[in-house]
């Protein structure tokens, strides 16, 4: 199928090349600028070009207790929300991909809804529900919100892999005497493992970066994005903010790259020949 396309369309028009290149530059230059600002010696304004370069802000940012606390809270939240999402998303994906039942479409819609509706709606809905039920804001209210929209990420990855995994493998394992739990541990898990890992990493990155829902469910607690948002609205520590911004970019890039390499060869799953 693919070869008939490559046939004669080898060379691209120059205008198209330029427009695509300019578009990609537009996507990447702003992020690169962050990296330059992290080293600037200027601390009172956003002066360009930077008068001089220094690395002292990294040490200062690391010593700041508020930055550390926010970072730690973000890591804990993202890890817990990812764990919840992994369990719920996998269960949902297994149910939807293995069987056909009444309301199957509705379940797919329900899973996607938290990410399809604007975050502010999810946020304000959760907040008013918390106040109606008189639940005080805590670590768990943040996790509650995050896990809700992380489920869809795990679900999407898992459902795609389940579709490609042959059901006869499970039957064969059961016929050979394994019980359901052994089958899960030795047959299902190795097959969907990389998809779950990729989904989990993306869910972690999503939760680590989430700010809109968090503003409604965090109360007085500050995750790293909330800390960033406060600095954006009322800049107090420009150099520290620059360093934190650069670190956040660096930290979120790693799971994305890893997830990409894990799912790239996802087509080669055992039992696919069927």
């Amino acid at each position: 199928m693919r070869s008939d396309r490559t046939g004669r369309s080898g060379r691209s028009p120059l205008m198209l090349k330029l427009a695509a290149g300019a578009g990609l530059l537009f996507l990447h230059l702003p992020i690169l600028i962050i990296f330059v600002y992290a080293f600037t010696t200027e601390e009172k304004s956003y002066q360009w070009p930077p008068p001089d370069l220094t690395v002292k802000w990294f040490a200062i940012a690391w010593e700041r207790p508020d930055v550390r606390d926010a970072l730690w809270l973000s890591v804990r939240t993202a890890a817990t929300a990812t764990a919840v999402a992994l369990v719920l998303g996998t269960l949902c994906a297994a149910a939807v991909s293995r069987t056909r039942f009444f309301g199957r479409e509705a379940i797919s819609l329900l899973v996607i809804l938290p990410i399809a509706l604007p975050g502010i709606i999810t946020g304000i809905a959760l907040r008013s529900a918390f106040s109606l039920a008189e639940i005080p804001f805590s670590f768990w209210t943040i996790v509650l919100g995050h896990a809700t929209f992380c489920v869809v990420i795990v679900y999407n990855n898992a459902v795609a892999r389940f579709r490609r995994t042959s059901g006869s493998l499970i039957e064969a394992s059961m016929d050979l005497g394994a019980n359901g739990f052994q089958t899960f541990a030795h047959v299902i898990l190795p097959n969907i493992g990389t998809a779950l890992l990729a989904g989990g990493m993306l869910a972690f990155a999503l939760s680590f970066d989430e700010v809109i829902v968090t503003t409604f469910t965090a109360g007085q607690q500050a995750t790293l994005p909330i800390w960033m948002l406060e600095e954006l609205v009322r800049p107090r520590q420009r150099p520290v903010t620059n360093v934190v911004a650069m670190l956040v970019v660096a930290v979120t890039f790693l799971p994305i790259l890893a997830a990409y390499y894990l799912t790239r060869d996802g087509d080669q799953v055992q039992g696919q020949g069927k």
Partner: protein
Amino acid sequence: MSAAAEAIRPPRDGTLGRLSDFLWRRPGLFLLLMLTPPLLWLGIIYVGSLFALLLQSFFSIDEFSGLIRHEFTLKTYAELLRPSNFDIIVRTVSMAAVVTLAAGVIALPIAYYAARYARGRWKAAFYLAVMLPLWSSYLVKVYAWKLILAKEGILNWLFAKLHLTWALEALLAIPVIGGNSLSVSYIGTFLVFVYVWLPFMILPMQAALERVPGNLIEASADLGAGTGQTFRHVVFPLALPGIIAGSIFTFSLTLGDYIIPQIVGSSRLFIGQAVYAHQGTAGNIPLAAAFTVVPIVIMGFYLWVAKRQGAFDAL
């Protein structure tokens, strides 16, 4: 004969074994067990709070005491039509429309090149080049634009170096979209919106363009059509569902955002900011809830049109 007896295995031993036999024979029960935790979570926590919110939009706030009156009324929805509130809706929807159009124009060459010309390594590079900005921190991206648009920032510096400051000033002098500087004008808000949502437009567009069969394009060229004609009459109609799918994201995300206009833009509110203000300091939850219904209704209508155009198959 013994082989036949072997074929039917005896029931499994142990609690786990008996449990898995039991579940294997009752697929309905097994399905129920698998679906209960996610459905409880999403159904109660998410849909429950969503309904609680929608319910509130039918209450109203007592103008004298400032307390919520728990009786059914459409008064809060009528308030949306007051000029000050209706302006907010019009402003947000027009911004969403302009952002979607601009994102479409910028995304098209990237998606087209990636879909039709990039091969092998380049293809992977293109994919990552779109995925990395898509997934990198939303706030950091907004922050980067705050740096770029600042008075002492790189954009003003660039205009000064090129001796084009007069052009920038002329642009900012335009009423409505202009302002004192880029970071407090609608132009600034627009730029940040386009930047932040652009990858959401590129990916579905590229997926749709990849599905346009190459031989149709060759056939069109063989029949004498120029590049532009082929694009207008063959490629574009076939890729339209993907473009609409991408526009769902850019449109919906712009409708609901309240952070970008708060950080880069004039002081005039967008829907998201109005919701935030009403539920927070003002304590007017019913009006905030009614405001959230606006993007839901607009997106519902948008999705309905998109579905008729077949955009969901392109997601």
